[in-house]
């Protein structure tokens, strides 16, 4: 297995290098960080030139990339166009997104697997039809629509009915809250709606994968053989069928997790969370953008996550299916 992992890591590093170069060039050429200054009649041409020099925009593109690259090799993500260190920011943003994504993935995976298996076992039953209809409804609904419905028809009404705030509609927390229990309660109240919104759009697709995989397995010869040998229905479903049906879904979840970690831009904007998605969005569209160093930092984190989770998916595949050997 180790030679396999080593080969994949090396291939991943090459991909990262090529992606970083391409993105650096594309982002640098996509706009002018001095646009805001140029649009302000009060800013003198001398100031604009000084800003150009201080942002290193007067240096050749390749030289700028090389400066960034050598800094990155030393663990330095550089400075944003507005003068803040990118490194500390990106880790904070990753933490914010993780706070949103980890509960989402855990809840969505459990719901999707259970519903998918249940739907397959009860194929064409009322439960199956209902589950299918709901999955398609949530899968086809944009996350901002679900978010607005949750805000306007759940949060506001529930809070009014109860007379105090159970669900918050904006932000990650309330500033100034102290005490462990209060902080946990406040965080939960802020996290509930965005997590519900993300779970609904995420579980929908996964439950369909799970249902299809389970149906495939249920129709396989070895399941019929297991039943013919007299194994209990429960043992056949859980040990023989479900374990094999988890293999494709596990891969999908592992790969999706890396992508979601890169940012749930719309959810973060709608709920006012400052995570990875907004970090990228602001890097590309903020007042002093494009912010190449910010975008590069986002890329390196998310691309690394994608590579890592690809490898993890392969390993999980082997663990779940003894027939597969990595080498």
């Amino acid at each position, binding site marked *: 297995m180790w030679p396999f992992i080593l080969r994949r890591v090396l291939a991943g590093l090459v991909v990262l290098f090529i992606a970083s170069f391409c993105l650096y060039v594309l982002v640098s050429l996509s706009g002018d960080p001095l646009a805001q200054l140029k649009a302000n009649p009060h800013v003198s041409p001398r100031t604009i030139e000084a800003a150009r020099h201080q942002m290193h925009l007067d240096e050749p593109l390749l030289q700028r990339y090389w400066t960034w690259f050598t800094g990155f090799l030393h663990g330095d993500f550089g400075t944003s166009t507005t003068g*803040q260190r990118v490194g500390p920011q990106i880790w904070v943003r990753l933490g914010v997104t993780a706070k949103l994504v980890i509960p989402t993935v855990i809840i969505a995976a459990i719901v999707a697997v259970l519903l998918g298996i249940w739907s397959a076992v009860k194929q064409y039953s009322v439960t199956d039809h209902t589950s299918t209809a709901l999955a398609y409804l949530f899968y086809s609904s944009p996350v901002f629509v679900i978010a607005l419905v949750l805000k306007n028809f759940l949060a506001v009404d529930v809070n009014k009915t109860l007379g105090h705030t159970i669900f*918050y509609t904006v932000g990650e927390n309330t500033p100034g809250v102290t005490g462990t229990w209060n902080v946990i309660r406040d965080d939960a109240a802020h996290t509930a709606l965005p997590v519900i919104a993300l779970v609904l759009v995420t579980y929908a697709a996964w439950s369909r994968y799970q249902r299809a995989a389970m149906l495939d397995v249920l129709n396989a010869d070895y399941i019929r053989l297991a039943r013919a040998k007299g194994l209990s229905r429960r043992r056949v479903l859980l040990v023989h069928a479900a374990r094999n049906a988890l293999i494709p879904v596990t891969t999908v979840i592992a790969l999706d997790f890396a992508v979601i970690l890169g940012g749930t831009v719309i959810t973060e904007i709608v709920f006012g969370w400052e995570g990875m998605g907004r970090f990228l969005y602001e890097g590309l569209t903020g007042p002093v953008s494009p912010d190449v160093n910010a975008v590069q930092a986002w890329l390196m984190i998310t691309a690394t996550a994608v590579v890592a989770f690809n490898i993890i998916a392969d390993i999980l595949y082997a663990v779940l299916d003894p027939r597969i050997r990595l080498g």
Partner: protein
Amino acid sequence: MRSSRLVKITGTTAMSAAALLVVAACGAGSSNPPPSSGPVKSGGSITFALDEDVAGWNVLQANDNEFVLQEILDQTWPQTFVIHPDLKPHLNTAIATSAKVTKKSPQTVVYKLNPKATWSDGTPINADDYIYNWKAQSGNPKYKDVGGKAFLPASTSGYSQIKSVTGSNGGKTVTVVFSQPYSDWQSLFSPMIPAHIASKVGFNSGFQEFNAAAKVSGGPYMLQSYSKGEDVVEVPNPHYWESKPKLDKITYRFITNDDQQPPAVQNNEVNIVNPALVSTTFYQSVKNIPNFNVQVLPGLEFQHIDFNESNPYLAKQSIRQAIAYGTDRQQMVDRIVAPLGVKNPQPLQNRIWMPTQPQFQDTSGGLGDFDPSKAKQLLESSGMTMGSDGYFQPNFGPEKGKDLTLSISTTSGVPVRSQIEQLFQASMKSIGIKINIQNYDANKLFGTVGPKGEFDMIEFAWVQSPYPSGNQSIYCSYTNANLCGSNWDHYANPQVDKLFTQALTNIDTSQAARQYNQIDSMLWKDMATLPLFQQPQLFGWSSNYGNIIPNTSSTGIPWNANQWGVSAQ
């Protein structure tokens, strides 16, 4: 998404403007009850939704110069003069007990500083602050920031005309001598960066992170905490020397998507809103929320169409005038402004003064009236022939014999601007001009397309401060690239240049106002640009707070946040 708002006159979208008293006189609309005032009690907190995070903490630095930051710093960085809702500068006696022009030639202003005024770390607010703020914003390369770097000021207006700033009386008297007169002298030193901090940590980069430097206050409140993209919290400055503010805490909550603000208001998570570019959806969402005051006021910001005179057809004054006569501006205000609750909105007839300012005059001379038949006559007399397809065809220039086709550009994804373009396109079709819409993201429009003159016509908003001097770089002759860098239209008129010089150096403000109106009258005759309408600003706040008074100037609604409080009733 909304675009950024800069503090002073800029090419991006919105900012606030307009005075309550003047608004009433102009018949502009407001919905719901008048501002809540009356007795307020001490204690409590308030949350104000801002639609943009800050880029740094030095609002005087070019990259940080955003309206949201000015709002946050209203109560922390000292301002010698504060713009009140009447859109006039008022002396802030907490900082200076007097500020007077003591000599006309050379113009000399003497500031007597409040002896009690100190920064929150105990350092007195004195002449050193005035000297540092002048040098950092003078644009003079002999003054350098920490590390020998050039200062990056957001503006050098006024400061570049100062010859010297000296202190006396233990630093509590400041004498400013100008090398040439400056009529907007009251705009200077408002706000001020703490010199004793900036000179150590740096003007350009020392305030980019939220650190001890950013927390130093010279006002009623001080910054307590900042969570990137989430919120900023201000608490009373314990060292403040005047009356203590009422509220224990002001939270500025960043809600960058304006559509998300109404649910937050309904859920009592936010108490004040002032979106960058109000939409009818937003207005409809908040106007019926119980116990929530909503006022829509004309801002100090206006939408306009610019003509690029490097285009051989738009170079002709008669064609520009024809386009103006053919544009149904009243239809635009009826469709765009009226649904926001503004009663009897009118097209804008002045580029330098807004109708909500006392200096405003209708300088259009009828040149902005909607008169399609006159537009067609002008096009014919300009060398155009009506084609069989209903479009004029020029008898000269690169498009000779083809339909007269011009493009209009603005920022993509901004509904108000798209609506303006579509109405303009329809108006032009009716007078025989074909319009292509070619939009760009804000960065490209203001970074490349505008400055490089890669457009035929361009639509966006100028945000005015009550001080008119910022208009010079927009309308003075483009041939003077250093001074007139914001003139993207290749417009040039030596008489306008001369009048600007006179107005800017005229310290008789009423005479200067007349000169600015003369300038605008010339701009109408030349049809340099076509002003469309004043952009409305929406202010909404929970009615259980008192003393909240909208301020449509570049100071913003927190101009008197030290008086805000929970109503005592």
